């Protein structure tokens, strides 16, 4: 097994600059790509995950490490041969029409991004048409909607209706969340998943895409 201690350390620390430099060095010295990923990056993220679950590090650190790994992957990607890695999945996400709360939605995006998904963030006050258009344009796997106001929850239903009208409801999985949103409500409007927090949003996304 190749040694990537400096790289692993940098990813654990969330030090993007030095992790990127270490990755560059590894590539230049002709290290095996799969080994950089497995023995460097994934080993670091396993460690991060373990430290997080023991409460030794906090969410900002975990997100920083995930971001660091992504930056390293950007360098590695051009070296992949066709079919080596497949993208995990695309998520179009936004806060629904009439609603300006975005902190929860942003956290969910960061966590999903950290877990390797591609995020297309439409921001806040997103009307159903904008969701539909983006889903079509990007051929997203998941459409995520956030609502923090009980009064904007109906917009989730309207957005799902808009997907149906556009004839693409069966091409995309819908996940919803936000403080007033419930599992029952998700069932009622026939969303595919509900997540009570950002960690669960990652688990649900993986489930929806058959990744776990």
């Amino acid at each position: 097994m190749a040694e990537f201690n400096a790289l692993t350390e940098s990813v654990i620390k969330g030090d993007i600059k030095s992790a990127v430099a270490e990755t560059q060095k590894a590539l230049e010295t002709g290290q095996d790509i799969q080994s950089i990923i497995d023995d460097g990056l994934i080993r670091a993220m396993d460690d991060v995950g373990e430290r997080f679950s023991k409460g030794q590090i906090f969410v900002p650190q975990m997100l920083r490490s995930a971001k660091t790994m992504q930056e390293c992957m950007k360098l590695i990607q051009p070296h992949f041969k066709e079919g080596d890695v497949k993208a995990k999945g695309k998520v179009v996400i936004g806060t629904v029409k009439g609603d300006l709360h975005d902190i929860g939605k942003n956290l969910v995006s960061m966590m999903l991004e950290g877990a390797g998904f591609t995020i297309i963030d439409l921001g806040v006050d997103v009307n159903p048409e904008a969701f539909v258009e983006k889903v079509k344009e990007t051929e997203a796997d998941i459409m995520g909607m956030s609502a923090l106001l009980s009064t904007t929850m109906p917009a989730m239903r309207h957005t799902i209706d808009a997907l149906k009208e556009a004839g693409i409801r069966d091409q995309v999985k819908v996940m919803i969340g936000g403080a007033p949103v419930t599992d029952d409500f998700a069932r009622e409007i026939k969303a595919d998943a509900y997540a009570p927090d950002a960690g669960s949003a990652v688990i649900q996304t993986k489930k929806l895409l058959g990744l776990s």
Partner: protein
Amino acid sequence: MKVNKGTSLPFYRPLNPAHIEKIDGAARWILEHIGIKIHDRHFLELMDQGGATVDSATSTVRFSAERLDKALAEAPRKFILHSRDGLNDIRLGEDRVYFTNGGRVFRALDVNSGNYRLTTLEDVANTAALVNRLAHINFYIIACQAHDLEPEHYHLNDFYHAFNATSKHVMGGCDSLVGVQQVWDLAALMAGGEQQLKERPFFSVITNPISPLTIESNTLNILGFCCSHGIPATCAPAPICGATAPATLAGALTQMHAEALAGVAIAQIFAPGSKVLYGAVLTAMDLRTMDFTMGSVEMAMMNAAAVQLAKRYDLPIYASAGVTESKRPDVQAGSEKSFSNLMVAMAGGDCVHLAAGMLDSGNSISYEQYVIDNEILGMVQRILAGINVTEETLALSVIQKVGPGGNYVMEDHTIDHMMDEFFYPDLCERHLFDIWVQQGRPNMLSRATAMVENILEAHKDCLDPQLNSRIRSAFPGIKDV
């Protein structure tokens, strides 16, 4: 206990004078160099005409030191949030501390079943009726979303039912210009005319910027309406440490102070002399998990510090305290609420909102919690009233009269002072053990449940029947609860 006269406020100062100057200087730097984002051409033009520095490329409004100081100088230091009967006027800027409940939750706890349910218009009327009776909740904030109302006559209804249930001052958020116009029309009819309402505004409006450093045009529409109509308002930033504000308390305070001052300054550009409260709703994330925390002890410290920052400019403050993550009226709720209410009150916050009724990070209310918090707030008011030291209270003559080995039970001095020296709680357990057992082992919560029932049963509508029928024929959009 009456509302304290506050002669010796503040008692608690988390910032020393040098800290205040540092934070204030940094906030002013933010306003001069970074600015506030406003995505609206019309308002950018208005700010430009009002002498602020507008950068249309980035849609930001900045304030030079001179422009800021001019605007802040125009803001009134003192004004009154009127009650309708004149008995519960909120006199801002006079070193008094007032408490009010927290607003606009979406669910309520049913203590008996332990379940939560969506709130309705009836909950607005009931919580207003509770506040009307509870002596230490000095005015009412529209407590919850009425899920049984359509948007069309939304604020007409929530404010009407609040006015009908309490004669104390009513404050609330409005979703739109149409909404605030509805409340204005209703209140003007009640006041006997627009001029009368302007002279004694008995309702006020809450708006919020979006941290960091952004204000939406809908918010400015509503704030602008208030300023031009003499309705007191606040534009209260709600930055969250570690999410929408720096993770350091000083950093969050600096950003919040810039946002709050901008709110005050913008109101003065809308209409010089506008009655606006410096607003502060500081909270934090639990960075272990990224759970939102309102009941943290840092929340209490920051909101107390915010009072000092508002007082740096002698501005009355809409401060925050009394919140908890707890989902039940329990030990956590009691301790977190007591800490923050006491600390912000001891800092001298003019009106402390969120102080009563809330649970579950501001998402929920419980009727029982209103009554329990009222008791906590009564104790806080007692603390603020301080220890009265005079010849009479030193009690030397009665000490001499009773002499060594006697007792004071039946002395005139005892009877003369027993009513104003002590806070008498309604809910706290004070009996001996055996009596407590005989009474069925009551506790604060069981007593609160009974008290809620009594208050709601005894409640009578506040609106005079004649006025009420005029209101009902003028506003057919009003629904019954």
